[in-house]
């Protein structure tokens, strides 16, 4: 009897995995998307019911499994320059003091999660969360080096597509500054070779 209940529970678990993922599917065309909208809306409501939501989080199934889908997202990077006026030295950091690879990978995903940075757009129009996060990182470094001048830059890294490489239109990774703290200055695009 207990096993039967357990099996039903596990079947529900898999059903919930199915629902969460169906809700997050991005159909290829807007026609299909609009046709499926009522269904996905109902499913989303079901998934966000308190019981299902909490269970989903506890079981790690509340996200969807679309890793790198339907396409690989933009890639962001940060560089922090800590300048000491007295000794005229500059310390360059790629992350705000993180030392291990494991935490740097998580920091990368934090930057990626702030999707909405756009190059060539006024940084005041960047999403509030992205700007607040950059400000937060800046504040943290300033607390670490209170008597130094700090400059934080967030970059977007543009990888040349296969067709661009084939036609020699772009043959290097392009690093584009998209956010700067404390003030924004015009910077030319630079190749990755000059970045690191």
């Amino acid at each position, binding site marked *: 009897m207990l*096993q039967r209940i*357990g099996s039903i529970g*596990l079947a529900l678990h*898999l059903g919930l*995995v199915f629902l969460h*993922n169906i809700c997050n*599917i*991005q*159909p*290829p065309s807007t026609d299909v998307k609009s046709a499926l909208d009522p269904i996905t809306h109902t499913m989303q409501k079901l998934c966000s019911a308190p019981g299902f*939501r*909490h269970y989903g*989080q*506890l*079981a*790690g*199934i*509340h*996200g*969807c*499994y*679309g*890793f*790198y*889908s*339907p*396409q*690989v997202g933009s*890639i962001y*990077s940060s560089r922090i320059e800590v300048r000491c006026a007295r000794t005229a030295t500059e310390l360059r950091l790629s992350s705000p*003091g*993180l*030392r*291990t*690879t*494991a*935490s*740097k*990978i*998580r*920091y*990368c*995903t*934090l930057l990626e*999660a702030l999707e909405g940075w756009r190059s060539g757009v006024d940084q005041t129009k960047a999403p509030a969360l992205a700007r*607040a*996060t950059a400000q*937060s*990182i800046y*504040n*943290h470094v300033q607390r670490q080096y209170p008597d130094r001048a700090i400059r934080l830059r967030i970059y977007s*890294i543009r*990888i040349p*597509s*296969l067709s661009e*490489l*084939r036609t020699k239109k772009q*043959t*290097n*990774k392009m690093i584009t500054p998209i956010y700067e703290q404390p003030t924004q200055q015009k910077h030319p695009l630079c190749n990755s070779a000059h970045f690191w």
Partner: protein
Amino acid sequence: MNSQRNRNTPYATAHTFGDGLQLLPRGIGLLLGIEMIQLWADLSLLYGPHSVYDAALLPYWHSGSSWNWEELFRSAHPLWIHATATLYSICCVCLVFGRWVPYSSLLLLIIHHGLFMADLRWAYGADYLAQTGLLFSLLFSYHPRTDSRHKWQRTGVYFWQAQLVLVYFFGGLGKAMGPTWWNGEAIWKAVQQPFPSNLLDIPLHWGSWTACWVIMGIAVVLLELGYAMAWLGTMYRRIICITTIGMHVGIALTIGLYHFSALMIWYNLCAWYYPYRTQTSYPIHNAPLGHAAPDAASTIKTASIQYKERR
């Protein structure tokens, strides 16, 4: 060869269909333990009052579960973060050595949720999958001592396989929805991501071999969509298992996501590789596995320790 070995070994080392699930927590414990050791030096930058992240922004990342550990960490002494990480590591060690597995799994499930799931700032794909693995460890990781428990564990293997089938199927379906995995652009962009510590850097001029990237992109989509074919039989299972492991080795080497890759390889081995056999009968008197008397092997009829391939 196996039958020869089985004839001479007591039940303590018997290989059964459910062994994969029994071993699942050991691998999860090892991998989560290694990850925590790596994160240890930066814990105070990730959590608590000295975190990189301002407290005012926390609500944006809160996943909506009823408790938020980060708020507790912010108001408590920084030592609590390391105390929590120590408890996390102890649970990992217990899982690795197979001690108090259900309790350790439960505690680790709760702590892992608190550190990575309740607040999604520092979470990525591997954390979600680790959480699911811990849930299965909690439900199925014990030595079955009765027929009914044995059956329950076998049921668990099928559910674990189904879980992985859904993971890969929806991964593949999502990729198939866009054009970039079909024309090779996505896999090219993925391997060019500047994650730290990747072992193999793919030179940019390799991008001129478009056909290779197209084939690899399509192969990844088809592999993920067709992952369920592992249920069709031994040959399909081997092909799917080997190619999936190959894909994860590639992800580890080129993108540098070692933790994620190792976790998925372990999950695949536990689901499909571990002697995919079913026991045709059970020990006499349902003697507990692992507690057989020294002469148990001789008292068990030959037929009772024979295995057969399921397919």
